[in-house]
Structure formats: structure tokens, C-alpha cells
């Protein structure tokens, strides 16, 4: 398990949703599979990346926004 208890509490990490069943999902975190609650993000679909915090998907990561941020930064420097 990559998450160490006692590691930063507000830590939230990106995880890829690989299956969904009701309000639970399985997420892949760098090769490790974990059960994740979708109680706070019912809109999640398979293939989405979510921000995982303490067993819950806290929000869906917007891949387009990520690309835009990176592109914008590259153009600036």
C-alpha cells in the first residue's frame, strides 16, 4: 500500500477508476488497487482520474485543465 498511516493527513493523490459498482469503485494507484467511495462524486465514470482522500474520491481531475495549465506554463518560459 503506498499510503503510509501517519503520512500527511490532508494528502490526496490521483487515482484511476477501473470499475464502478453503486457508490463504490475500484481505483488504481500506481499499480495498487483500492476500494474507493464515490459518495462525494457520484458523477465518476470508469477511466476517470480522481483525487483520492481517506478512502473517498474527493473530486474528478480535469485532464483538459491539466493540459492547459502545462501548455500555458511552457509558453511562458
Amino acid at each position: 500500500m503506498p499510503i503510509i498511516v501517519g503520512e500527511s493527513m490532508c494528502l490526496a493523490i490521483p487515482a484511476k477508476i477501473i470499475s464502478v459498482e453503486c457508490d463504490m469503485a475500484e481505483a488504481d494507484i500506481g499499480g495498487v488497487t483500492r476500494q474507493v467511495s464515490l459518495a462525494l462524486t457520484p458523477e465518476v465514470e470508469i477511466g476517470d482520474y480522481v483525487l483520492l482522500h481517506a478512502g473517498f474520491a474527493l473530486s474528478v481531475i480535469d485532464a483538459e485543465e491539466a493540459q492547459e495549465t502545462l501548455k500555458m506554463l511552457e509558453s511562458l518560459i
Partner: protein
Amino acid sequence: MKFVDEFRSVELVRGIVEKLRHSDLLSIRLMEFCGGHTHAILKFGIRQLVPSSVEMLSGPGCPVCVTSSSDVDLSVSLALDNDLILTTFGDMIRVPGSRGSLQQAKAEGADIRIVYSVIDALQIARDNPGKDVVFLGIGFETTVPTVAATVIAADKEGITNFKVLSLHKLCPPIMKEVLDAGEVRLNGIIGPGHVSAVIGSAPYEFIPRYYGMGCVVSGFEPVDILQTIAMLVDQVVENKPDVDVSYRRVVRREGNVRAQEVMNTVFQPADADWRGIGIVKDSGLRIRDEFGQFNALTYYKVRLDDQSEIKGCICGDILRGVKVPTDCRLFGKTCTPEHPVGPCMVSSEGSCAAYYVYGA
């Protein structure tokens, strides 16, 4: 890992640092209000990367550190004086109180278990129907919806032996408190990324309006933090304080509305006691009466007198940005992560622990 590695790009880091070096800025003082940022800033050596004109301070953002001594004592008493199972996140167990830490209480026979998620605490309640299971609720808006969702689940399932001791704290009210106190002069605020994933960036709009400084909500990778600093520097140079988001892949202005609804269904604002700061009006959360059966505070009727702070520990001053860990006489001597004297040395989000591990 996707969405991590790209934001650790050496070229981007170099590019932003170079841009910062060439800005017209004389000096700027920023404060981060998230323990995750304190940790990341020291871990990635951000302070060493940015020009010396950029000064960075930590605010009261480490959930373990801001928990008052009396609330630590309350948790210890709850565990020692009642026949129950206390469940908590790992960090909290080592925080010293005047009656010792939860770890010591555990050694004295209290049933205290570390959980990774509040879901695990509910599972312990399911598995032990004859015993009350209390979850020690610490944390900011990031963690609160997970606790609220679990209370709702327990209610639906009719699990009555699950309780929450809500010591939760809210971010915007404490920002306001620190700004009102005016002990440190600031030019900008690094907004907490994961709190804002829930509440959005709109709640910070009072900062430019009333305090004339900007707030940029940031992610936790080096590129995120440096970009945030660059944005705040631009705001100061152009004299255009504003609320902005550098962490757009996660944070939207309105936040996660569903998570806010879940949170507001179970909790309502209440006064909270902050280490080094004291009671701040409506800066915490209590369980609503509709969910009163889950409220450990009223269920056990535990209350303690105010306890004095730990002798020699200046955590409180550090949390307000008035002092830094190296100002503490105990830092690295009697107080180390192995033997913490105060809470700021316990959690990896605490300033003292981060300074100790990564160097000041």
C-alpha cells in the same frame, strides 16, 4: 504517476524560477494555510529555489497541530474513562496532552485503533455491535465530507454504536482571524488545494476585498507551488490582488457542491478552540441535532477545564506565523519526531517536523 510527474518537471521548475528572478519585485511575504503545503515546500526545497525577496510563512494549517491541548485531553479522557473503542488517524495518537497522549492511554489499556479512513471506523462499529466506537474527527473541509458521508451511511444502516467526536476546523474563518490579528504583515496567501477541492475558491473572495491581498489556490507539486508564487508576485507587482487558482485540474470556483451538501447535512458551524489562538467563533463544526445520536460530545457529556499549553513549546506562535521552529529552544534537542514534545513535531504536516526532516 499521471498528474504528478508532469508537475514535477525540472524544465518547468527552472523556467518559473528564472522568471521569478527577473521580476521587478522588491519583497513579498506569503503565508500558506495548509499543512500539506508546509510539508511540500520544505520537501521540495521551494524556499531555497525562490529569490530571497520571497519570504514564506506557515499558518495554522496542520490539523493535528491546531488541535488544542484541552481537546487532546478530552480525547484521552474519553478513551480512558469509558468502555469504548476510539478510532483515529495515525498522527493524532502521538500528540502529547496534559494527561499524556492517546498512545500512552493505549498502553494503559484503552482500546484505541488507528484507521486510514472513517469508513474503517464504521466497519469496526459493524463488527463490534456490543461496543461504542468513537471516531476522532479532526481535519479541515477536505476530511469533513468523508466523515459526514459516513454518518449518513451509519444512519441509513441503523448503526447506533458509531459516534463522532467532532474537533473539525474550517479554513476561511481562521484565515480571517489571522489577518484580523495583524501580527504578521502579508502580501498574499497560498490557498489550500484540497480544502478548496471541496469548498471552491469563492470563499476566499473576502481576502482581496477587505484585506487588499491576493489568494491563489495551489496544488502540491513543485510546479504548482512555484506557479502560485509567480502568480502572487505578479499580483503584487501589478497591484491587482485577486482570488485565482493555479490548481485548475482539481479546484473550481464553486468547489464540489455535492460534498458541501453532504457536509452541511450533518454538520453546522460552531466555535472551535485552536492551539495558540484560542476560541474562534464559527471556525469549527458540530453535529446537527438531527444526527445527535452520533455526537460523542453530547453522548458522553465530556468536558474539561482549559489546560495549560505544554511547557517550553512555542507551537502556538509558530502556527500564527510569528515564530519559526528554529526559534524554539527544544527544537531538535529534547523535541524530535521520535520524541515529540509538542504537536508541531508529530505530524509530517507540522512545521517543526518538516523543518527537522528536510532542514530549515
